[in-house]
């Protein structure tokens, strides 16, 4: 779990050009990265490749923090 969230933060920081060191698992990712839900789905595609899973779009509904998204990933690994 701890690993997943760290990989997730690193990938999000890379895609949206943010500083990974400034991002915490409990942060609201939309707010901290300044992204909307359309941009977020691009991140989901990266994550699917990295973790070799399929993450349906609906899994993103209601998810706001990095930690919550990491949990969804772990459930499908």
């Amino acid at each position, binding site marked *: 779990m701890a690993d997943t969230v760290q990989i997730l933060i690193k990938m999000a920081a890379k895609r949206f050009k943010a500083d990974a060191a400034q991002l915490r698992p409990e942060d*609201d990712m*939309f707010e901290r990265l300044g992204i909307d839900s*359309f941009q977020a*789905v691009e991140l989901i595609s990266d994550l699917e490749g990295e973790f070799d899973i399929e993450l*349906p*779009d609906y899994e993103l*509904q209601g998810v*706001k923090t990095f930690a919550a998204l990491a949990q969804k990933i772990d459930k499908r690994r």
Partner: protein
Amino acid sequence: MLDLGRIPSLGAALRDATISFKIRTALIEADRHRESSRHTYAELRAAADLFTGALQAHGFEPGDRCAVLMQNQSKWIVGALGALWAGATLVPLDYKLTAPEQAALVAHGKPRVLLTEWPTWEKLALEPQGPFERVLVVVTEAPEGAALGRAVRFESLRHQPAVYRERAREDLACIVYSSGTGGTPKGCMLSHANYLAQAEVLGRMYPMKEGERYFSVLPTNHAIDFMCGFLIPLMMGATVVHQRTLRPAYLSATMQRYGITHMALVPTILKTLERRIRDRLDELPKWQRLLIDNLIDLNEFATRREPNHKLSSRLLRPIHDQFGGKLKFVFCGGAFVERRSAEFFNSLGIPVAIGYGLTEAGTVLTVNDLKPFRGDSVGKPVPGVELELRDQNEAGVGEVWVRGPTVMQGYLDEPELSREAIVDGWLRTGDLGLLDAAGHLKLVGRARNMIVTEGGKNVYPEDIEAAFAGLDDCEEFSVFAANYLWPTGKLTDEQLLIVVRPKPGSSDEQVDALIGELRARNRRLADYKRLAGYLLWEREFPRTASQKIKRDPLARDLRARLDRASIRAL
């Protein structure tokens, strides 16, 4: 030509189509790079009949309500069609709402049956079950051993021979919620006559034919996709393509794979597509860019009177190929469309018809006819719609009122709201507009305290206020649309703000803490409901005898004493 004059109901029109187009493909469902299902019109009829029979086995009667709460997919259409054939009034619900919001709409709409899918039901089953007690909940694609609770599996429904039940034109076809996720639910009651009138007009203006393919990406519960991505293509023998994921990479692959010809979009998706094309063009070497720019100019000149898909797709093949090469028409509405985006696509030979409508009046009231293309208006009233601008100022700007065959019967169980919305058969839209010499409508603002997001969601301040109830050290507060307080003459950058009056005598620390709590609660709201800023206010709010805040006098006072510069970011 779509001639629905003698057709009594949506069910009848669609039933006729399943007979006329029998061997044609009606539905395709894609999931990533796979195709998960395909139905011919005959197969669609058989699948819908099974659902009709299953509903009837549970005692479903004409006039009973069937709610559909699913992502866009074939079973949405199969279920809706089966329910219509059993004589149902459909209650399409938004799968993007939170579970408590969905449960509240089920409680309000009182459906006899709820057709939903496993990921949604998994969350709804954790909500208080009161609203579902008398509802037959049918869930699709639940995994083996899933805790279904009170729900039954779609796949194991009891079947019996279906009996087609006819409805009359004035009967209710749908109850569609235009807002009310927190305040008063506004369930627009639309009759079969409303939908048939709209389908006939749009089907004549923008006909579809066998072999053409509509890509359904907007939620089907929304008025636009329900009309453009369900009724019209199926009544005209075309194919509707669904896809479980809306990621840009898969969208593009599906458009190429299936040769999509038609789409309807909201401005936010149009802008995402625009950004992607512009980025790609910017990456080209200078000489290629110059060549493409010249071809774009040539295309614009050649299609200045009306679109010519064949010519445009030849001139600008690499760009058209990104959309599958067959896309010939995009309808855009649901919220304010920026002229620049529409003009950009039109210059590429992908005409964007901008329209304007309200759930309260079907799908569109006005639409551009593309003869020639215009990106600066929402078009002319469609045949049958009368439009008046009332209380005009010197510049000709007035509030848009409309009358016509698509105007709803009223809001479900809200006679007072209905009387305010429809006066002597005229629907008050709450939007401000003006008509130009060619009869095109241009929208310039809102006469109501509300916003519409770029994604096409109506947000009413009163629906949000509950989220801020009981704040410490807050004497009173009210939420407003910034453009309502200080009109800009435009429909861009619509924002909500909260006016807060701290308890008299509060210290600076207490006010800071109050703003901190406001911020925290704001963050918990769905993104489209979030407030952009706040105003601190020291005067007592004007109130009615029953202690309700008088919004209009408060707005006048705010307008007179503060300006936009007083808004502080949240």
